[in-house]
């Protein structure tokens, strides 16, 4: 035992070595990356041009604040004309009296005493000439894809009845609802809508689409609309022209939602009249169910205004928006993935000098009636809506 004692320090030292912290602070050994001037500007036709300048910071700089740059000499040149100086407005923006017009070629140059000068160019983009609901909008349809049954004790049953070609997601419902069950029934509807716009020929065009829903929670006489962003499904955006150029595999779309806006190019329909078929989903609440024979929707007959925005983007704006959306997604899911490089077209600095032009179109829908249905096992085998769930349009 005594002999063993002399080994104890050795063993302890060995154990210490094994258990040495595997984490340590290290020095950044590469050449330090210097701060850059950040320029932010989106030129929209008929909207006064505003530019914001700020200073980037080294990622290990001991601050969590960013500083705006208010002492820069910022010059704007339009169509190669002599540059004019933009003024700082104390609200963080540099402004010019100039109102952008479609096709104008803009050039920005900024200089500050402490940061390298930056330069950027952009051409003011023109919006599409026509963006209207398509002919088939009158027959647009809706059908239930999800139902939530809330039991009196707050148990929720979610029944998903969607089915895609690739992801054959077929849920068998066997909820047997007793007469005593009470709760809210929510239906998640998909609307297929069609819009038409004319793409410009002979050049690459970039688009962004977003949909907002305004639901009337008031009455017809005294409307009160709630605004909400509508989630577009990934690949929900389809055009008739698009399909002609893609093989069957592409059509095998998946049915997972993607948040935010949807961006696309005219790669497959340059110069054509494009029929956009978009699928949006919207939740509709129905009344408390007390008797399975009487399923009465409270929101039946309510109106929903869907406002669809089609934004023409310059190439820079498109690349910036795409990369920024990917970065946002990566920050949520990208534990093992490559970080996203966010696009910048600012020479000598960082940021975006882009251009965008919006066009709007809207449709008015009426919340469908909740139809009578049984609660025996049901297998939904087709994407197509059943006849009783067709949305009635005004």
């Amino acid at each position, binding site marked *: 035992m005594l002999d063993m004692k002399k080994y104890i320090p050795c063993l302890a030292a060995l154990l210490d070595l094994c258990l040495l912290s595997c984490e340590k*602070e290290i*020095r950044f050994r590469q050449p330090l990356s210097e701060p850059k001037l950040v320029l932010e500007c989106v030129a929209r036709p008929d909207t006064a041009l505003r530019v914001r300048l700020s200073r980037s910071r*080294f*990622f290990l700089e001991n*601050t969590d604040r960013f500083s705006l740059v208010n002492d820069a000499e910022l010059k704007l040149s339009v169509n190669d004309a002599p540059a004019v100086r933009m003024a700082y407005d104390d609200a963080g923006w540099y402004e010019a009296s100039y109102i952008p017009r479609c096709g104008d070629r803009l050039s920005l140059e900024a200089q500050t005493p402490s940061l390298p000068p930056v330069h950027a160019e952009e051409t003011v983009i023109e919006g599409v000439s026509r963006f209207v609901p398509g002919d088939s909008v009158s027959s647009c349809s809706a059908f239930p894809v999800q139902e939530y049954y809330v039991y009196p004790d707050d148990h929720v049953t979610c029944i998903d009845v969607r089915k895609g070609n690739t992801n054959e997601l077929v849920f068998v419902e066997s909820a047997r609802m007793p007469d005593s069950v009470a709760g809210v029934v929510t239906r998640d509807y998909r609307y297929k809508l069609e819009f038409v716009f004319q793409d410009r020929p002979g050049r690459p065009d970039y688009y962004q689409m977003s949909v907002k829903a305004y639901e009337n929670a008031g009455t017809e006489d005294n409307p009160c609309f709630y605004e909400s962003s509508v989630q577009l499904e990934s690949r929900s955006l389809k055009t008739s022209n698009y399909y002609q150029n893609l093989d069957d*595999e592409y059509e095998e779309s998946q049915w997972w939602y993607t948040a935010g806006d949807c961006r696309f190019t005219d790669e497959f329909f340059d110069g054509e009249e494009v029929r956009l078929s978009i699928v949006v989903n919207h939740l509709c609440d129905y009344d408390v169910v007390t008797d399975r024979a009487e399923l009465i929707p409270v929101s039946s007959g309510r109106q929903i205004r869907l406002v669809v925005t089609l934004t023409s983007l310059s190439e820079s704006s498109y690349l910036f928006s795409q990369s920024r959306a*990917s970065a946002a997604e990566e920050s949520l899911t*990208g*534990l093992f993935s490559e970080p996203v490089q966010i696009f910048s077209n600012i020479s000598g600095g960082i940021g975006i000098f882009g251009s965008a032009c919006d066009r709007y179109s809207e449709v008015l829908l009426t919340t469908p009636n909740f139809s009578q249905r049984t609660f025996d096992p049901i297998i939904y085998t087709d994407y197509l809506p059943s006849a009783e769930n067709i949305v009635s349009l005004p």
Partner: protein
Amino acid sequence: MRHLNKTLLLLCGLTGLSPLFARNYTVSGYLRDAATGETLISATVYDRHSGRGVTSNLYGFYSLTLPEDSVYLEFSYLGYLPHRETFLLDSDRTLHVALQSNTLLEEVVIEAPENREIGVRGTQMSTVAVPVGQIKQLPALFGEVDVLKALQLLPGVQGGIEGSSGMYVRGGGPDENLVLLDGVPVYNVNHAGGFFSVFNADAIKNVTLYKGSFPARFGGRLSSVVDVRMNDGNDKEIHGNFSVGLISSKLNVEGPIVKESTTFNVSLRRTYSDLLVKPAMAYLAMTDPEVRKFSAGYYFYDLNLKLAHKFSDRDRLYLSLYSGDDAIYANVRTSDYTTSEEDHYLSRLKLDWKWGNLVSALRWNHVINPRLFLNTTASYTRYRFNMGINASDSYTSPSEHTEEEAALVFHSAIEDYTLKADLDWQPDTRHEIKAGANITRHTFKPGITALSARERTDDVTARIDTSYGDANLSSLETMFYIEDNIELGPFVKLNLGLHHSDYFISRRSYHSLQPRAGLRWLFDDAWSFKLGYARMNQYIHLLSNSSISLPTDLWVPVTRQIQPMFSQQYSGGLFYQWRNKVDFSLEAYYKTMDNLIEYKDGASFMGSSTGWEEKVCMGRGWAYGVEFLAQKSFGRTTGWLAYTWARSERLFDRLGQELNWGKVFPAKYDRRHDISLTASHKFSDRIDVSATWVYATGNCATLGLQEYLLEDQQLTYIESRNNYRYQDYHRLDLGINFHKKKKHGIQTWNLSIYNAYNQNNPFFVYTESEYDAADRTVRKKLMQVSIFTFIPSLNYSYKF
């Protein structure tokens, strides 16, 4: 048969075969270990009179055609005493030779035999054979001898992250290596996230790595071929060994079923970390009143089995089998009496994950005639991943009873059925021809998820039962090859080959003709210069998001959008053998790779192949470098010094598929310098020591070096992909073996220390911010995480 001969004669004619009808005779037979009967691969047969020689093939068969004359044949193999035969060759002759293992340690006694295929005299370059005995002597992480990690110590081969057995060969990716076990591809070569390979060194006879100048018989991957051959089994008597280590135990038994006719070799390995923690879990379950049952663990196992049967001197049959799995399991039951003894809550979680390979091959060797050897193989290989999760809760009170249960099962797999025929033919003294054909049916099962859920409240039940996922995909791959080793005089030897492959999938087909060429110019017995060229094609990709090997990594085939990858590699080198003891090589290579795929910024797979084509970009890459190797494989002191200077870059500039804004960026495992020094020294029959020191330029990573504000959100500016380099990597491993003769065998104690000087090598880095609420300041730090710092291990083995 006549037709076959005619065809082969025609092919020979095409390759410029002139002395076809000279009066030549052939000596042929098998080369074996005298003690075990094990066939010897790449052993040398050399006629000192004519200066001609050959090496035995993968099955130990040799065939040497010589002019009618007296011959002085020398049979030699590394670690064996040479055997010499003198006779008058006036007819075809069958000569089976058994070589005695050399137990003498003095280098002066025996010169190291030359490997005539890859040494100074061979046409093959960019190829390294590492004796398994030497691999076993190297110090190893947790005492687990690892074949693939030993290969990482060779020039041109880089390991991935710390401790992993991933291989990056000459700037290629980890899925560009064709790893063959007895000629059958193994799809997942890793255990435990890549920290161990699936190859149990006890079961392995021979390992050869091809990095370039690929022989025409290989195809299907861009960057390397690792040819691993299993032991056939001792045909004299039963032998074996077992070993007990820190994390696993191994058992290997081999011997004759029918003496000198039918043999077996079986090896088992299993880790037991799960068994060791069982008592701790039982204690936890005992001491925590809420835990009713608690068992969880991880283990992997390997089973290697080989049966060999000799029907006659002309016919042999082999059955090879490998089965290995990784498994994670958990079974947790908890109960809780929440408010009173009448309110009872029960919860159960059950995990059952299993993934692994099954590889089997039935092989028939037939000596058609002394000059013609046929090998026919039917094989099956499969990698599959099964994941099961089952969770249930129940609540019981006097007034109600609820139950909830959810189960998720995920299954993905890839499997191949292959039929293959290979011919070795030596028509005359100047030609060694190999030809063959192969047909493989691949089935990709990208992943099916079955989901079921049940909820029951008193007499109300709701149930969901569904399954979804991608449909299975089948493809057919056919391959033909022919190669000829042509001796053009005493100095020049050529290896010319053609490899043709077709790939049929979803009503589409891809064809590829891949020329291969090698040239050796012999300056004298010690010096030679070699050139090589190879074009390779690859039809499958591995979808993986991480640097470690995850079971969710998926193999997927080419599609209409994703074209097959192909590469072209040019290499040249100088080879020198110093006093028949040390081999030196200095090689340079330039490799171009096209249709490479890289994941788009932010792309994530994690077990899903759905829509994978839109998550990847196609582009090209190139790699070039210089490799130096000094290898001593024989004597008391063995080892090698390897140095690599390399560069590997990528360019993804196709429209809509740009990465790094269409500019060149370094490949993920681009490293400028790589040095490996390994040495083993045998002091006596009782003690030997070994050491390995590695140094490498740090790995690349992508780091945003500037932060900025745009549209009121904080964004990170990444100037270019892989713009940051981790600090340089270096490590020293030490090992010592103590051997002792016992009554029935030899016992060995092995002590290994991995990372002996406790170097904190980077595993990954991240930033951390510390906020000081008092003075409202923030301090940001760059943190580095390291693993495997100073890992000692002890291993006991007994060979009987």
